[in-house]
C-alpha cells in the first residue's frame, strides 16, 4: 500500500528541524499498572507453595511416615494425623505430605531435563533449520509417537526393578524416564516458537550488527520464546505427576515403603472399602496440584499473548 508523500509537503516539513518534545517523562501519566493476578492464580500459587513448604518441613511437625503402629491400623483421625491411619497403622497425612516431596521431585526433575535438553534442541532446530532440523525434528516425532508410559515402564523395569535397588536409584531412573518423555514435548514447542521469532526483523538486525549465532540465540530468541516454554513446562509438570501415579499403579513408581502420592493410591486400591481415604486423599492432592499448574500455565500464556499484542 503506497503512502505517497506529496513532494511539496515533504519539502516544507523538511525545513523545520525536529524539535525535541517539550513533554517530559514525568508529565506523562504513570504507566498503567499490570493487572494483578486473579484470585484463582493466587490460590494456585498458595496451594503449590504450601505443599512444597510442608513437604520440606514435614519432619518438624509430623510423625515418621514409615513408623507403623499396628494397633492404630485403619483407625480415624487423631491429633496431627488428620487423615487417620493406613492399613499398617502409619500416619496417612504424614505419608501424604512426605510423599509430596518425592512426587514433586520426580515431576520437576523430569521436566527440568525436558526443558534443558528439549529446549536446547528445539532452539537449535528452529534457529539453524536445514540439515540439523531435518535430523532433530523427526526424532522428536518418533519419540512422541512411542507409547510414553510403556517407554517409562521399560526403563524403570530394566534399570531399577531389582530387589536391592535403593529408593534413590528408583527415583533417579524415574526422573530420567519421565524426562525422556518430556524432551520431545518441550522441544517441539520451543522449535515452533523459535521458528516464528527467528524470522523477526530484530533477529536479522542483530545478525546484521555482527552478533554471533550463540548470542543471537540466547539474547534475542530465547527470552522471547521463554514464556511459551514456561507455560508448557507447568503443564508438563502436571503430566509428570499423573504419569508417576500411573507407574505407581503398576508397582513401578517410588518404591514402598517410601511414600509418594502414586503409591499411596496404589496401596489404597486394595483397601478401598476399609480405608477409602487412602485413595481419596491422593486423588484430591493430585487433582489440586495438576489443576493449579495448568491454571498458572494458562495465566502465563495469557500474559504472554497480551504482551505480544502490545508490540
Amino acid at each position, binding site marked *: 500500500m503506497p503512502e505517497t*508523500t*506529496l513532494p511539496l509537503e*515533504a519539502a516544507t516539513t523538511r525545513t523545520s528541524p525536529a524539535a525535541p518534545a517539550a513533554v517530559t517523562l514525568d508529565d506523562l501519566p504513570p504507566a498503567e499498572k499490570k493487572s494483578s493476578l486473579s484470585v484463582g492464580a493466587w490460590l494456585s500459587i498458595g496451594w503449590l507453595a504450601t505443599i512444597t513448604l510442608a513437604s520440606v518441613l514435614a519432619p518438624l511437625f509430623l510423625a515418621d511416615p514409615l513408623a507403623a503402629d499396628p494397633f492404630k491400623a485403619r483407625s480415624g483421625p487423631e491429633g496431627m494425623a488428620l487423615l487417620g491411619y493406613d492399613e499398617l497403622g502409619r500416619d496417612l497425612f504424614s505419608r501424604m505430605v512426605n510423599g509430596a516431596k518425592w512426587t514433586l521431585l520426580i515431576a520437576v526433575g523430569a521436566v527440568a531435563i525436558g526443558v534443558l535438553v528439549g529446549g536446547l534442541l528445539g532452539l537449535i532446530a528452529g534457529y539453524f533449520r536445514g540439515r540439523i532440523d531435518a535430523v532433530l525434528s523427526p526424532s522428536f516425532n518418533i519419540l512422541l509417537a512411542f507409547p510414553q508410559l510403556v517407554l517409562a515402564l521399560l526403563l524403570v523395569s530394566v534399570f531399577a526393578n531389582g530387589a536391592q535397588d535403593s529408593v534413590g536409584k528408583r527415583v533417579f531412573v524415574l526422573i530420567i524416564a519421565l524426562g525422556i518423555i518430556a524432551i520431545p514435548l518441550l522441544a517441539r514447542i520451543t522449535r515452533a516458537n523459535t521458528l516464528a521469532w527467528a524470522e523477526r526483523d530484530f533477529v*536479522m538486525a*542483530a545478525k546484521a*550488527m555482527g*552478533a554471533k549465532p550463540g548470542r543471537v540465540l540466547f539474547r*534475542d530468541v530465547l527470552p522471547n520464546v521463554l514464556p511459551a516454554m514456561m507455560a508448557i513446562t507447568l503443564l508438563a509438570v502436571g503430566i509428570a505427576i499423573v504419569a508417576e501415579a500411573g507407574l505407581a499403579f503398576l508397582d513401578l513408581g517410588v518404591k514402598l515403603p517410601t511414600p509418594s502420592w502414586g503409591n499411596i493410591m496404589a496401596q489404597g486400591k486394595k483397601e478401598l472399602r476399609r480405608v477409602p481415604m487412602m485413595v481419596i486423599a491422593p486423588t484430591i492432592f493430585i487433582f489440586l496440584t495438576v489443576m493449579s499448574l495448568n491454571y498458572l500455565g494458562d495465566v502465563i500464556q495469557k500474559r504472554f499473548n497480551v504482551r505480544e499484542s502490545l508490540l
Partner: protein
Amino acid sequence: MSTATDQPTTGKAGDEHHLLEVTDLRTSFKTGRGMVRAVDGLSLSVERGKTLGLVGESGSGKSVTSRSIMGLTPRRNVERSGTVRLGGRDITDLSEAEYRELWATEMAMIFQDPMTALNPVTKVGNQIAESMRVHLDLSKSEARERTLALLEAVRIPEAHKRIDVYPHEMSGGMRQRVVIAIALACGPKLLFADEPTTALDVTVQAQVLDLLAEQQRERYMGMILVTHDLGVVASRADEIAVMYAGRIVERAPTRVLFREMKMPYTEALLAAIPKLEMAPHTRLVAIGGRPPDLVNPPEGCSFSPRCPYVQDRCRTEQPELVESPTTAGHFYACHFPVGSPENDEIRVQLRKSGVSLPGDEVAVTAAPGGAQPSVRAQLADTADEAQQQRQSTQANDSSTSTKEA
C-alpha cells in the same frame, strides 16, 4: 567525530575507488516454481558522503539488493553472483564470520519496520550498547556513555531516561530513531536505509529523514536509501537509481533525473504521484498491469508489457543500461527513451489514436506560460534546493574542519 578529520583526504581519494562498487550483481531464490531472479544483473556505486536513492515498486528487488550487498541473504536456496567491492576490497564471497567483521563497523542497515526491528524484551540502551561492546571492545560504562550520546544525536528527548526503557514504551518515530542509533553505533562507512520511514506517518517521516541526512553528512557515510517514494528521495539523494524487475532501468543525479527522465517507467512513476492542485475526485493515475513475474521475466525489456510506447523491438531485445549521449552520469535502459525523436514519433502516433499518455500532463504544463508547475518540475526544484543546501553546509563543514586543522 573521528570521521570529520579524515573527511578531506578520503573525499579526494574517492576517485580511485568508490566506497561501494557493485558489478553485475545477481541474486536468485530457489522456489518450487523455479528460480526467482530478484536481482538480475545490477551495477551501482556509492561514494563516501553521498546518498544513492534506490527507487522501485514493491517486488522490484530493492530490499534484496541491499541485503545481497551486505551479505545478509540466506545461504540456503539462494544463488548470488557478481562482485561487490567495499573500499576496493572484494567482499562478494565472504564467510559469515568474515562478514561479521564488516557488519556494524563497515556497513550497517536500518530496517524498515521499527515495530519489529527491536527486541521486545531488551532495554533499548542495551540493544544499542551491545554491538559497541562486541565490536569496539568497550567497557560497560563506556558503552553506556556512548549510547547516551547516540540517543542524543538521534534527538531522543530525555535520553538518560529513555536508555532504560523497553521498545514497547516508545512511539514508532522514537523507535525508528533507536533503530538508527543502533545502525550508527559502530560508525559504519556505508549505511543502508531500507525504507526507513514506510512505517511512520508523514510528519515523523520528514523528521527521521532529516535526521538520517544530518547524520550521514556529519559522519561522512555513504548511504543507500531504499524507498518506493520518489518524494522521499527527491530532496535527500544525490543520485537516484530506479529499479524495475531486479535491474536498474535508469540512474542519474537527482536533478537530472527529474528534469530529463528517459525511461518510460520513471515517467509513469512520477505521473502516478497525486497532486494537491488536482480537482477533487480525480482518478488516481496508476501504472497498468502488474510487475513482471520474476520466475519467467518477459523476453526483451521487462517493462515492455506495461509500457505505453512499446514497440516490437522492445519485446525481443533487452535494452542495455547506457549513458546518455547528452548528459554525463545519466544512464538508462530503453530503446525509445522519453524525449528522443523516436519516442516523440510514437507519441504522436499514439495520440492520434486517442491514447492519453503519462507524459502529456508534463508536456502541457512545461510549455511556456503553463499555469501550474508539474510535479516533475517541483521535484526537480526540490532536488536543486536540497543540493544547494547540502553543498553549502558541506562547504561550511569543510571550512570549519580546515580551520580546526
